[in-house]
């Protein structure tokens, strides 16, 4: 069967609505979640604070040296902060003003639990207050005037993250090549028709996922036969994270309506031998930085349409533990990359390294909280949703939440500040 007829047929299967292409000017929000509670204090290191070195005798990042050019030296951001040396690939983005950082971000969840904290953050809620769906799911439902497509929300990986819960549709995948039905007998038409008919008649739990899957097949069919070449000599890291970013770049360039893309990078739960400029955490930072830098270069032509945010569920404690790692803390730094981001600086107050109730010199170490939180994570997300993604219904995304100005994005006049 020729591709056109096959595609034409698959299109007929998409039940209930014609699939119009979304606005060419659409924007894509890419959410990178660092699972495990990333120690951002070693990524954006407060070298200007002596206490940082006192509390982390083994694992701290040495201050930037005079010329800042040595391979392993921290990279100066301002008089107080420096990048971990492995973040070097992102240093030009900071200098160009397209990478911004919000310091002291966090949630009100003090459980110290990865799952509670991730859940709460992905749901976009306050502790103990349940809002239906995930924050990206609600954003996609509440943003005005655009059609939803099966690829409006994609998650790179085997499962759909909590943040996309409640999205009108969301697809989990590892790569585009996977998005096809393989019928051993090549009798695709009859098999597809039968599946379409069975899932089309379904009214329960599987109705929506069944239809989204069929619709997705139609759209990806068109993309798949074009070979993908990264632009601007972008080299993605040779791992799942790099491959996932590459797929997202391909989808963005294809302009098939991807509005939210989620991708995870794990390995941040560094209780044990975290390392400093090298070591376990440095390897993850390296992957993150090389991946995001390649993504940025590859999408140079599309840079006005793509915004990346990098978040984690909580930061880690300011002092190292007896196994040269760090335990669960509270506040962390969030990064955002994009043309609409107020980059080149660190927003938020300088961290108060010693949170209330914590005194590192006494025996009383019960319930230490780590880095103090000066800004709720929802304020950062809200600025991006309103200022970059144009959401006008923020009360539907974060109900009953009082926002606080962070400064990462402009054009946020619709927001009512605390």
């Amino acid at each position, binding site marked *: 069967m020729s591709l056109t007829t096959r595609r034409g047929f698959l299109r007929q299967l998409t039940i209930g609505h014609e699939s119009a292409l979304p606005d060419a000017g659409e924007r894509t929000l890419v959410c990178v979640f660092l699972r495990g509670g990333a120690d951002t204090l070693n990524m954006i290191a407060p070298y200007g604070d002596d206490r940082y070195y006192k509390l982390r005798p083994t694992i701290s990042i040495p201050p930037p040296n005079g010329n800042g050019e040595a391979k392993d030296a921290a990279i100066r951001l301002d008089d107080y902060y420096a990048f971990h040396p492995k973040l070097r690939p992102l240093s030009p983005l900071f200098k160009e003003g397209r990478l911004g950082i919000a310091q002291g971000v966090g949630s009100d969840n003090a459980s110290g*639990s990865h*799952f509670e904290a991730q859940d709460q953050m992905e749901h976009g809620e306050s502790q103990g207050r349940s809002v239906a769906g995930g924050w990206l799911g609600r954003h996609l439902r509440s943003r005005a005037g655009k059609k939803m497509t099966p690829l409006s929300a994609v998650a790179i990986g085997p*499962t759909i993250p909590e943040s996309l*819960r409640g999205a009108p549709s969301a697809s989990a995948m590892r790569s585009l090549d*996977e998005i096809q039905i393989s019928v051993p007998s090549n009798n695709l038409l009859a*098999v597809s028709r039968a*599946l379409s008919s069975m899932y089309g008649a379904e009214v329960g739990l599987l109705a929506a996922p069944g239809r989204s899957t069929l619709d997705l097949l139609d759209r990806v069919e068109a993309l798949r036969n074009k070979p993908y070449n990264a632009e601007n000599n972008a080299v993605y890291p040779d791992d799942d994270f790099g491959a996932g970013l590459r797929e997202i770049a391909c989808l963005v360039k294809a302009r098939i309506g991807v509005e939210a893309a989620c991708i995870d990078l*794990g390995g941040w739960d560094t209780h044990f031998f975290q390392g400093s400029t090298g070591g376990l955490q440095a390897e993850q930072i390296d992957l993150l930085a090389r991946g995001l830098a390649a993504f940025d270069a590859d999408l140079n032509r599309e840079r006005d349409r793509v915004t990346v945010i990098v978040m984690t569920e909580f930061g880690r404690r300011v002092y190292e533990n007896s196994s040269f790692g760090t335990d669960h803390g509270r506040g962390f730094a969030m990064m955002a990359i994009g043309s609409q981001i107020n980059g080149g600086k660190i927003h938020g107050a300088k961290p108060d390294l010693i949170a209330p109730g914590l005194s590192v010199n006494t025996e009383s170490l019960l319930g230490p909280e780590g880095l103090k939180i000066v800004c709720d994570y929802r304020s950062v997300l809200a600025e991006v949703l309103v200022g970059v993604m144009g959401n006008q219904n923020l009360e539907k995304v974060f109900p009953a939440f009082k926002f606080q100005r962070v400064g990462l994005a402009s054009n946020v006049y619709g927001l009512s500040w605390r």
Partner: protein
Amino acid sequence: MTTTRREWMKVAAVAGGLFSLPPALVGCERAISSVTKEFGQTIPERVSVAGGSEIDPTFHLLSRASYGVWPGDLDRVRAMTAEAWIEEQLAPEKIDDALCDLRARRFETLHHEPGTCYEYKKPVLREEITRHTLLRAVYSRRQLFEVMVGFWTDHLNINLEKGDSIYLKPYDDRSVIRAHALGKFRDLIRASALSPAMLVYLDGKENRKAGPEDIPNENYARELLELHTLGVSGGYTQADVYEVARCLTGWRLRTKWRKGTVYFEPASHDDGEKSVLGHRIPAGGGERDLDRVVEIVCDHPSTARHIAAKLAQKLVSDQPPVTLVERAAKVFTETGGDIKAMLREVLHSGEFKASRGLKFKRPFHFIASCLRATGADTHAHKPLIEYLLRMGQAPFQHPTPDGYPDEATPWLGTLLWRWNFALAIAANQIPSVQVEPQRLINAIGASGPAQLAPHFIGRTGTEAELKALNNYAASQGIDTDERKAEMLGLILASPAFQSY
């Protein structure tokens, strides 16, 4: 073992005969396949199917308390009664599992001490424990036991890829999960607390206080309270986490002689007084602190509720009825955490009977139930395992300590891979997996989809389901093997077969 000596002689004779053939012609696995078929691990000559428009109650019980209905299971359980079947399953040691053993016992790394496992390469260890898990789920006659092994494997999750876990998980699988899957909850938790794999996975081996400046590593203590026992809203404080961590300081792993085994190092133990969940633990308890902590957390009322709720979620529905959770929690408390007693309470409950079709099969369950429903012959080689990876549920690969989620939503993005697996297995397109659609169709006496579907979904097809399948049959015909296989694949890919 109830296999008679005579039967074993027969097995030995058949096996011996086959093994004597040139290896190039008949491999060991083909010999095992032949022997197991000879002794009944195959599709019986006649197979009854459910006849009503609602899911058959026996089919429902088998769907939840096993990895799916093997051809003929329905007849067997109906003949012996559901009550007798549950009791049979609750005494797995009395069930002859020789045929499954033939397929699954030969993975040698599963029988070794941790130290010996270090002599194997990681891919070998990973492959053996993964294949073993799937083969047991598909072929064991101790099905409820295997379901509970899966439940506790998630509950006490260990990821093979962290640190040395891969060398230590075989021992954990054997002496923690399988040893206590139907035992007492407290024994399970104590075994897990002292499991070398757990001490690596949650950093317990690094939790020590050798000097005044040492701060405990809270990783295991936190998950013990949050995930393994009380639950996140179980009423513990951050101070409790810290105190539990103090109690558990000093458990180390040997690194040379008897590598990977556990010992207590008094000098690394914080021997001061502690207070856990309102209980004072006096100074000087040493290694007894661990037993005290296990006792306190397992006896806590929040633990009874947490475990009851998880078990009800596993066996009844994603949002289990509160009434059932309360009763199961009461049984937990009254029996000192007797897992069999809780299972009796749940499986005999009205809430269980009323929950037909409410659960969504996770990928592992979907694949195991496809293999069982078709009476497939496999030794679980890489092509089959690849599908589990693709759908995101390969055994022992969940990265975080909460284990694979046991609810529908996170898995709804995997439909396409299910469709592809269904079509491939039915068409015998997965290398190392053999199915015989014609034999199954004959055993059921099916002349079309209307008679075939109930074997897989436990009820007659709805008008819409049958219309879709009949339209396919009408347009393509179902007289060739290829078309029959495709029909089978469509039934396995249907919405109804994704639920149970």
